[in-house]
């Protein structure tokens, strides 16, 4: 880590150059255009909102980079930080609709439960985009390993989309995706399309059958591997199975529970991948998004503006300190 690195931390496109948006507290109106139910198990309710900003100078200037997040405000319920899970792509013309984007949300708290009750046409407030992004420029010409755990797939999906749209610019690309059970694999219907686009997709589950669902009538039909995502990564140590694994030219993008990212980063280092080529998306209870409220501090970092995407050479020492 050096000063060049630290400056690259804050080197993200800034949509807040317009003075009207320099007070970050002002929300901007967005309308729900579509709602997709992603997961509907008794223990996991996940949905994707397609939002379109109301026409304004802010909407015109709005652009996000994969890895960044928005604050979503539902008056009366509150505000919550949700990462971008993709631009909205017109399915016939295959073009990106401006001012329109996707947020995949798990209904788990007061605000997200209220968001789940919204319908198409409802309005909510948006502030953002905030935070650092995945190092998209640095991925070009490199092999890419995307490691995701659970809902951590959501912030990585824009990366998959970006790679998909210009597949030839990247070397070998693999997604290693761990989930609690087969029923909780997010974006399961898209995985085949990603494979066809030349992205290696390997999934692994903690349990062939969701242990949180009592007396599930379903018999396990999962034939894939059982374990955690580190196992999929560690397989790369076998030259026999992975003769074209080149750690020195591999970039690793990690998103999932902190413990999973920590273990995967350690495994990636053992495989010979440099710390500066490993990236983590860290999570805390962000409230302001701009370093005012202090909640998301992690050592010297405000994870809302110096993160959520943090390079491992910076995160390594911080991850070692308990309760930091």
């Amino acid at each position, binding site marked *: 880590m050096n000063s060049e690195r630290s400056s690259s931390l804050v080197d993200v496109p800034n949509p807040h*150059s317009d003075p009207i948006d320099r*007070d970050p507290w002002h929300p901007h109106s967005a309308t729900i255009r579509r709602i997709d139910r992603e997961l509907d198990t008794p223990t996991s309710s996940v949905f994707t909102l397609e939002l379109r900003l109301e026409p304004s100078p802010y909407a015109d200037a709005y652009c996000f980079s994969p890895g960044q997040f928005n604050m979503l405000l539902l008056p009366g319920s509150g505000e919550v930080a949700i990462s971008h899970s993709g631009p909205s792509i017109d399915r016939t013309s295959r073009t990106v609709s401006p001012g329109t984007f996707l947020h995949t949300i798990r209904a788990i708290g007061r605000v997200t439960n209220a968001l789940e009750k*919204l319908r198409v046409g409802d309005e909510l407030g948006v502030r953002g985009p905030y935070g650092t992004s995945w190092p998209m420029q640095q991925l070009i010409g490199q092999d890419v390993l995307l490691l995701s755990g659970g809902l951590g797939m959501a912030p990585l999906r824009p990366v998959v989309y970006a790679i998909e749209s210009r597949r030839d610019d990247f070397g070998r690309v693999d997604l290693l995706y761990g989930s609690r059970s087969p029923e909780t694999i997010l974006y399961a219907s898209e995985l085949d399309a990603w494979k066809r686009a030349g992205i290696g997709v390997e999934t692994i589950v903690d349990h062939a059958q969701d242990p949180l669902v009592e007396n599930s009538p379903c018999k396990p039909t999962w034939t894939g591997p059982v374990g955690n995502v580190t196992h999929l990564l560690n397989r790369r140590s076998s030259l026999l199975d992975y003769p074209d694994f080149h750690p020195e030219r591999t970039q690793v993008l990690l998103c999932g529970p902190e413990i999973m990212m920590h273990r995967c980063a350690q495994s990636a280092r053992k495989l010979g991948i440099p710390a500066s080529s490993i990236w983590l998306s860290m999570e805390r209870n962000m409230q302001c998004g701009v370093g005012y409220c202090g909640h998301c501090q992690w050592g010297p970092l405000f994870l809302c503006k110096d993160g959520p995407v943090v390079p491992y050479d910076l995160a390594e020492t911080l991850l070692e300190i308990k309760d930091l």
Partner: protein
Amino acid sequence: MTAPPSKPPSIDSPGMLHDAGPPYGTPRWIAPSQLQSLIDILRIENYRVLAPTLDQHAIVYDEITSIGQLPKGYSDSQAPAVYQLTQTPSAPENQKLFHFNLGPHSPKQFLFPPNSILPGPQKAGPQKADFNDADSNQSSDSSHEPQLVQPMAILGLRACELAAIAIQDRVLMSPPFIDSQYALRRKSLFVIAVQCTTAASTCFCHSMNTGPELPGPELPGPELPGPDANPITYDLALTELVPSNHSQFTHGFLIQAGSRRGQVILDQLPSEEPTPEILEAKKQTIEAVHKKIQRAMPSGPSNIDGQPGDLRDALLARLNHPHWQNVADRCLSCANCTMVCPTCFCSSVDEVSDLLNESSIRQRHWDSCFNPDFSHTSGAPVRNTVRSRYRQWLTHKLATWFDQFDSSGCVGCGRCITWCPVGIDLTQEVAKLLEPSDAPLLNVPPRLHHR
């Protein structure tokens, strides 16, 4: 003296601070009664004048209209966990209006109020929400807060408090993001600083390089970021002096402008040129305050050249020091230190709606890293022990603040020592943390430079 102008010029006209003009800052001498004229002029100019007052056995800032409300003849005795209001026994000190030290209040109370309402829609629920443009929201929001409408003048701010304002400016007014409510209050603030003429046992501003001497016009305050930030200095500075045995002068104030608008007001007050004796008395008073300050923040351990080391690096290398547990065994995690700290800025936002959920506001209130649920991930607290929360507070204040804002987060005011119910003294805790221990020193990440 200068005759008052027939028509008082506007003291709020933008650009007044930066106008080229005759040099200001020449010290003048005024009688105590002229402070009343000063308050009157500010009130005519629509300022809400805040100053030290007596309330519940402490000296706190509140709105005043008369110098009779100042705590004349009062002082205080402070020590870890002790704040005792006292009456100054004998003349001439008992004539003084500012012969006391810092109370629990700081300018943070007014620039960054404990409770405020954030901009945004005030109707609840989907569809009904009315997300107006930023500008149209401004007027409706300000109705909730007089501070956003009426400019403030604070009389009595000390050197360390000016430094604290400069630090909060960096937190809330550093581009690209400007907290518009803070900026509005901050930019209309008229500062009448008061030179400390005494010191509490808890003061250690000297070792934090923030006092006790007020910066002069020739000694500008800390450099501030961005074209939109006001340089923090004062508009007017007062030094209260009382005669000693053989003095030729009587009780009065040296007054000096630090801004053009300050000079405009000063020119309206009857004043005299200070005698050499008065200027010498000021010098001696400040020297006496220096001598009175006994506490000091330790610097990092000496390096090979015998120079003091960097406290940031020293603390970050000792995150596993056993003394953190020693502090934790005494600390009540009550958050008093963060409430009285003039630079602590952590806050939370609550959505507050009426019973029918038809209207709602976003209310920001001070929060503290000492609250267990302050930081969490996936519903679980990040810092579940007092040890980790005290460590977060202290290392943020004295170490990682440098990474974030290029300065220390501590101005040496000593409030956290006085108002800690169990008398934890951060200067002593730092000294203990710098002592050798069995815990190996950690690798310290190089300092980040965000700004």
